[in-house]
């Protein structure tokens, strides 16, 4: 059994995943064992219907966070599946009208790989480039659209840089042309105030584990408007309007629902807390020369994600030197793949700059003291690694 020993770390990798809120974990436990609500929600007997009611309450909780109709939400296993269902299912639904699709070079692999699969089926995909801040220009987007474009997919908050795209403007462009608009909002839901009644979004992907819910559960929002639909990509049952068959994981769904409710009550506080932490970290490392923030430094950025390159430093070494501070690097960062981040390369960063990038991501439980420690550790590590490399020039 793997021993839990997380407390010896300073965890600044909340964009990778968040711990499950204690209230959520305790609530979920009531839906697992014989004493709890364990039955299959598709069953018509009383315990099954009790489970079905719990599922619908969770759907209402999530609908409240997004300001949508509960009926427009489909449970999935997470954002990857939601992205696949939206993109592949949406393209298949619209495929008779046209075969052209548009996305960005800086999307998550779950999106890019879904588009790659569609290309193998014969669809054409245009990958638009961001500006050096990571934002897509509306002129660039318009230029990529064609008469036969059927679907556009652009993420809300970038997982590496925290850049926030102008979803409303992009959505309006898509609506003018009756193009399905999908948003990967894995890094936005539960952190950024979203009102999908006001935003022109057709399909939106989310996952619970980014906002203190459990891993393995997510949802896809499908707007209730003519021409907006997806075809299933999994088959085997009638659950979730036949769009996503499979026995519903009630304990995970209720966990997502409660996590959504808790997030809805703290959105403004969360933003303020993230802003304080970001400014504190930046202030703590500002004396170091040769730093470069990757992303947008204006208001079009989620403050809980801060991506910084340190010139003359290699990312994997920096990550190890930062221990016990846990962060993510600008490369794939494992022993098998030290390729620089394709997201940072798309922003125009050279390999060395991209390789030196570190992503700090803060969360509900991050303290100013932890950020101060991380800033000091970062400064020490940069000075040390630059010292080791001194003499190579």
């Amino acid at each position: 059994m793997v021993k839990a020993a997380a407390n010896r770390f300073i965890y600044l990798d909340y964009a990778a995943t968040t711990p499950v809120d204690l209230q959520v974990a305790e609530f979920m436990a009531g839906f697992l064992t014989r004493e709890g609500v364990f039955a299959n929600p598709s069953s018509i007997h009383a315990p099954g219907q009790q489970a079905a009611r719990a599922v619908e309450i969770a759907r209402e909780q999530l609908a409240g966070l997004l300001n949508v109709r509960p009926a427009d939400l489909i449970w999935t296993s997470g954002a990857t599946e939601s992205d696949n269902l939206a993109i592949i299912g949406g393209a298949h639904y619209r495929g008779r009208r046209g075969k052209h699709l548009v996305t960005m070079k800086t999307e998550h692999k779950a999106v890019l790989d879904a588009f790659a699969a569609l290309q193998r089926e014969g669809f054409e995909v245009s990958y638009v480039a961001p500006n050096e801040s990571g934002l897509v220009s509306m002129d660039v987007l318009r230029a990529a659209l064609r008469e036969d474009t059927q679907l556009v997919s652009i993420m809300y908050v970038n997982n590496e840089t925290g850049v926030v795209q102008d979803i409303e403007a992009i959505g309006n462009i898509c609506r003018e042309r009756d193009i399905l608009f999908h948003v990967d909002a894995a890094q936005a839901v539960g952190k950024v105030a979203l009102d999908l009644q006001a935003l022109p979004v057709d399909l939106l992907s989310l996952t619970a584990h980014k906002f203190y819910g459990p891993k393995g559960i997510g949802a896809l929002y499908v707007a209730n408007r003519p021409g907006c639909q997806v075809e299933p990509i999994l088959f085997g049952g009638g659950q979730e309007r036949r769009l996503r068959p499979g026995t519903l994981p009630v304990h995970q769904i209720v966990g997502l629902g409660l996590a959504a409710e808790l997030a809805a009550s703290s959105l403004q506080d969360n933003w303020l807390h993230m802003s304080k932490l970001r400014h504190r970290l930046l202030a703590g490392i500002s004396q170091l020369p040769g730093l470069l923030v990757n992303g947008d430094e204006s208001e079009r950025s989620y403050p809980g994600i801060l991506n910084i390159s340190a010139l003359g430093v290699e990312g994997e070494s920096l990550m190890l030197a930062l221990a016990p501070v846990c962060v993510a690097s600008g490369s794939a960062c494992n022993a098998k793949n030290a390729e620089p981040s394709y997201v940072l390369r798309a922003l125009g960063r050279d390999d060395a700059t991209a390789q030196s990038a570190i992503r700090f991501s803060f969360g509900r439980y991050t303290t100013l003291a932890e950020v101060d420690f991380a800033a000091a550790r970062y400064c020490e590590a940069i000075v040390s690694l630059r010292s080791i490399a001194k003499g190579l020039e």
Partner: protein
Amino acid sequence: MADRDVAYNERVLECFSAPRHAGPLTPGGPVYSGRAQESAAGARVVLLCHSDGDHISEMRFSAWGCPHFIAAAEWLCRELESQPLAQLNEFDIRSVQRLLAVPVEKTGRILTLEDALEALKASLSQPKTQ
């Protein structure tokens, strides 16, 4: 992010966190050096040494690269410092890969270190003035 306890063995962690051979040589005496680079944006290293004619009296390095690479350079310096010059020809660079459990995907970086070592041997074979 890889779990550091899994990704790096104790020897790597020790050499990486305390690279006492990183930096310049003590001033004075001829300086011998060997330099190598994995690729345009890849790992790079320079090995430096002093020699009294029979022994490697002091050895230092500068490096840019992953923890395995820095640890390997440090380990190599530790192993060769104070050794007879002949030890340079005996030194098995692959032993560094084994001892530091360098993943096979990073073999290129160990070979880069080997190139630097070869360049250092070539430098030592040339007459030097201070």
